[in-house]
């Protein structure tokens, strides 16, 4: 039998020499539906990549200028929607810095425990989703099962699985439930067990390792000059963690390590996140051990904290205070402040400007993954098309945060 291609010229088999343009996203499963990369390809090699964001822009900063200071909380939930508690606490700390309020000790431990739970959920989502995008569906289910345990606790505490709106200026919406410590103590062990099972499936898989190792490497100095923070920066070997470098809440009193990588490639970013889950577990265990069972959860500053319901219904002072705080908003002293915490992806900063009224003059969020995504083209240019998926997945771009 004759071969089928017998009458084809050699020249017809060659690929065209012109670069090919390809739109990757926004409707691409690995692009989270919010990022578009305009690629210039030579064969399968990326010659030029233009990363375009903004598909999820909702005018967060403009909306904040229309309500009271307390009405910003539901918006910050929707920035990083896999770790909304870290955003809540970050914003609350920023306003408290501007007001000069310190929250009670019990609240600080509570915020830390909830924040670390949110961090675990953030890292599990990132690592699980990246593995799934590479075709490893089972570990994703394991990680999501562990994430469900985190969300069960958060649901029990706050009433909502995802958008908690639980932070308040000067405290939290509710004190910890009676079962909080027991639930945390039980869950963290189970979560770690599931994570270990899931990571065993991945880290003993030659194909998975090959897809990550030496893919998208970046040097520490370059990552810093791009404004990277968080696990992506630490994977290059620079141990900049705000919880260690500039401790807030009670992070200076707990014992934990900062996992760092060496090569700054995608595998290091993956491993850094796994390491941080273990450290978060350690922090949670110390928090539940040291958090007092009794005591106030909110600061007693009447300028910003709502009075108790009994006072509102039985005393005229309470009614007036409640009315003014709800209708006019807490009067935050005029000034400008930049407050920063360690979010799931890195430095989560809030730059607030107040003109002394009940409405923010300017709320500027510094979303960590905006600059991380801004450096994406440095990682993928010159690489193969298929490397985009793990590289982009390990950066943990969160659309709500990146696009404001």
């Amino acid at each position, binding site marked *: 039998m004759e071969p089928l291609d017998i009458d084809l010229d050699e020249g017809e088999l060659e690929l065209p020499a012109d670069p090919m*343009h390809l*739109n990757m996203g926004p409707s691409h499963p690995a692009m989270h539906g919010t990022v578009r990369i*305009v690629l210039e390809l030579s064969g399968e090699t990326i010659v030029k990549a233009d990363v*375009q*964001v*903004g598909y999820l*822009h909702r*005018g967060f*900063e*403009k*909306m904040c*200028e*229309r309500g009271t200071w307390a009405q910003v909380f539901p918006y910050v939930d929707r920035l990083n929607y896999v770790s909304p508690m870290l955003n809540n606490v970050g914003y609350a700390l920023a306003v408290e*810095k*501007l007001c000069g309020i310190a929250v009670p000790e019990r609240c600080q431990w509570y915020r830390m425990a909830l924040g670390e739970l949110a961090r675990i959920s953030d890292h599990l989502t990132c690592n699980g989703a990246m593995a799934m995008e590479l075709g490893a569906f089972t570990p994703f289910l394991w990680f999501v099962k562990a994430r469900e345990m985190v969300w069960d606790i958060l649901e029990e505490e706050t009433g909502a699985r995802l958008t908690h709106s639980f932070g308040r200026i000067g405290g939290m919406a509710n004190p910890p439930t009676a079962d909080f410590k027991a639930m945390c103590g039980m869950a963290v062990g189970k979560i770690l067990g599931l994570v270990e099972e899931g990571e065993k499936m991945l880290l003993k898989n030659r194909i998975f390792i090959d897809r990550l190792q030496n893919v998208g490497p970046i040097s520490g*100095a370059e990552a*810093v*000059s*791009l*404004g*990277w*923070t968080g696990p992506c920066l630490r994977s290059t070997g*620079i141990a*900049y963690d705000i919880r260690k*470098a*500039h401790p807030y809440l009670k992070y200076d009193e707990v014992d934990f390590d900062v996992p760092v990588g060496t090569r700054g490639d995608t595998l290091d970013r993956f491993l850094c996140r796994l390491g941080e889950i273990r450290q978060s577990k350690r922090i949670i265990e110390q928090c539940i051990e040291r958090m007092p069972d009794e005591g106030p959860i909110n600061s007693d500053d009447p300028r910003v904290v709502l009075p108790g319901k009994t006072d509102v219904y039985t005393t005229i002072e309470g009614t007036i205070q409640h009315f003014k705080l709800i209708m006019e908003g807490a009067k935050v002293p005029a*000034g*400008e*402040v*930049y407050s*920063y915490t360690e979010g799931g992806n890195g*430095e989560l*900063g809030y*730059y607030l*400007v107040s003109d002394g009224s009940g409405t923010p*003059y*300017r709320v*500027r969020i*510094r979303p960590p993954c*905006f*600059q991380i*995504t*801004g*450096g994406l083209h440095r990682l993928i240019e010159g690489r193969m098309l298929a490397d985009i998926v793990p590289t982009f997945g390990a950066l943990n771009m969160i659309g709500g945060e990146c*696009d*404001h």
Partner: protein
Amino acid sequence: MSQLVLDKLKARFGAAILATHSDFGDDTALVEPAQWKAISTFLREDPDLDFDLPVDLCGVDYPSRGAAGRTEVVMHLYSIGKKHRIRLKARVGDEDMDGAELESVTSIWPGMNWLERETWDMSGVRFVGHPDLRRILMYPEFEGHALQKTYPADRIQPLVPYRTEEEAGVPLEKQAPFGPDEGMAFGRTANNISRAEVD
């Protein structure tokens, strides 16, 4: 902690540092816009200051200031090695945002690239010498700058027609997937084309 930074800045640039404060522990310097890049270079390169991490850049609009510099461009920097921070501010533009320009610092910190694009997009401050000053969160046809205080929050922007190949900058080999009136919210006739006219 880092009064040192403000002292060094004042010693080096003198009159170009218009004001400083350290409210809430945040060291802040308001600087002459013309010296923006020179001061940035100094902050990056002086071994005692060594600001290597570009943290943030944004614009804050004060329409009431009028000709005195309507928009305040605010830059936050951090030094990983020295563990100190600074906030640098410059006031640019008059009532109509004429002359709202600063020199780009993208060549000093590549991470400022997107932040400068965002500040242009949202606050309308141009960065001279920026390699690629396009809008970033909004689309090219968007009119105005959303975070200026004079931009009404409820303003509706017209829907835009599909871009031609020249406008888009990349070949558009495929046909546009929608007709001109599709994708329009109910009751809006921004393009003034009704379905009846198309049919």
